[in-house]
């Protein structure tokens, strides 16, 4: 059978072409094209290209919506005279926090820094904002919880996501 196929000189002879294809397929690995070796960098890390799609996007949509609806309720109290429901706003953030924990989805520090860990308020208008005597930036929430950032230790400190090349926009 094989000999026949090789002897056939007709360019697109249907039966031969079919067999040739099948034959190639049976050959296995070689026919699949040159397999590229996985790239390993200096630190022994296997390099993988970034994915094209993100799984479970709906969780992120939900978190995003909760954050914004909470912001809306906070906003009305912040600048305008209309009365917002701060308890509602806090509850939305609380739900958002729970959802992110349950679904194991993470938030960037840019979001987390705007949320009080205790009362779940948005820290847009903190009660107190100061650099303490030891050089740390302290942000006091309306509930009295203090967020401290030790900026005196390293003024140039950047979080992992803020450093270059670590954050990719898909």
């Amino acid at each position, binding site marked *: 059978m094989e000999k026949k196929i090789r002897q056939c000189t007709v360019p697109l002879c249907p039966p031969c072409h079919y067999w040739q294809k099948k034959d190639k397929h049976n050959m296995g690995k070689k026919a699949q094209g040159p397999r590229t070796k996985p790239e390993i960098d200096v630190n022994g890390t*296997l390099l993988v290209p970034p994915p094209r799609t*993100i799984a479970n996007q709906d969780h992120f949509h939900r978190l995003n919506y909760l954050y*914004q609806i909470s912001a809306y309720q906070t*906003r009305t109290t912040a600048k305008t005279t209309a009365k917002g429901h701060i308890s509602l706003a806090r509850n939305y953030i609380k739900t958002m926090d729970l959802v992110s924990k349950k679904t194991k*989805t*993470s938030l960037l520090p*840019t979001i987390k820094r705007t949320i009080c860990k205790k009362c779940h308020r948005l820290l847009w208008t903190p009660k107190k904002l*100061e650099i303490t005597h030891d050089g740390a930036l302290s942000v006091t929430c309306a509930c009295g919880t203090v967020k401290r950032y030790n900026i005196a230790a390293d003024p140039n400190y950047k979080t992992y996501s803020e450093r270059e090349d670590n954050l990719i926009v898909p």
Partner: protein
Amino acid sequence: MSGSLKSLDKKVAKRRQVYKPVLDNPFTNEAHMWPHVHDQPLVWQLLQCSILNKLAHIQSKDDYPWELYTEFNDIVQYLSSEGGSSDPVCLFVCNKDPDVPLVLLQQIPLLCYMAPMVVKLVQLPKSAMAIFKPVSKYGMLLLRCDDRVDRKFVSQIQKNVDPLRFPWLDAVKYQRTSVKLLKTTVPIVSKKRQK
């Protein structure tokens, strides 16, 4: 040598690169939070000629000819004080230089926006910190634009710097979810080891 043990060790992958999806803040878009300065060199020159050069010759802070604040705490206190004077205020910040903590910078635009008076937030060009260092530790200068300050200087700054804008605070509009990928690595654990 290519056949040495060390080079062999490097060829065996120990960690694998992964991309973790993370949610970004829909509101804080750094590029738009800082108002645009139209003629950056002009504003910087003006500030140097009319304010900074004079400050360099003054020894103590009590002798300043204008009402200005350089400490972060003083600036915050001034901006959040209710019922003070309603004079417009200019806040100059070196936000593009190293040695200015990012956490500190992130607080400023919203703080200015929420202030009871009109605040002109001016971002300064790169390497402005070198001249600012003796005046202010974190490269900030708040100047109250009253009668003592040159009118032309104030009008030039008013003309060249855009006003603060927070579209998400003024109008309710749903912002699209911005999911980003964080590039990290995880260890490769063989199945035998897991057992």
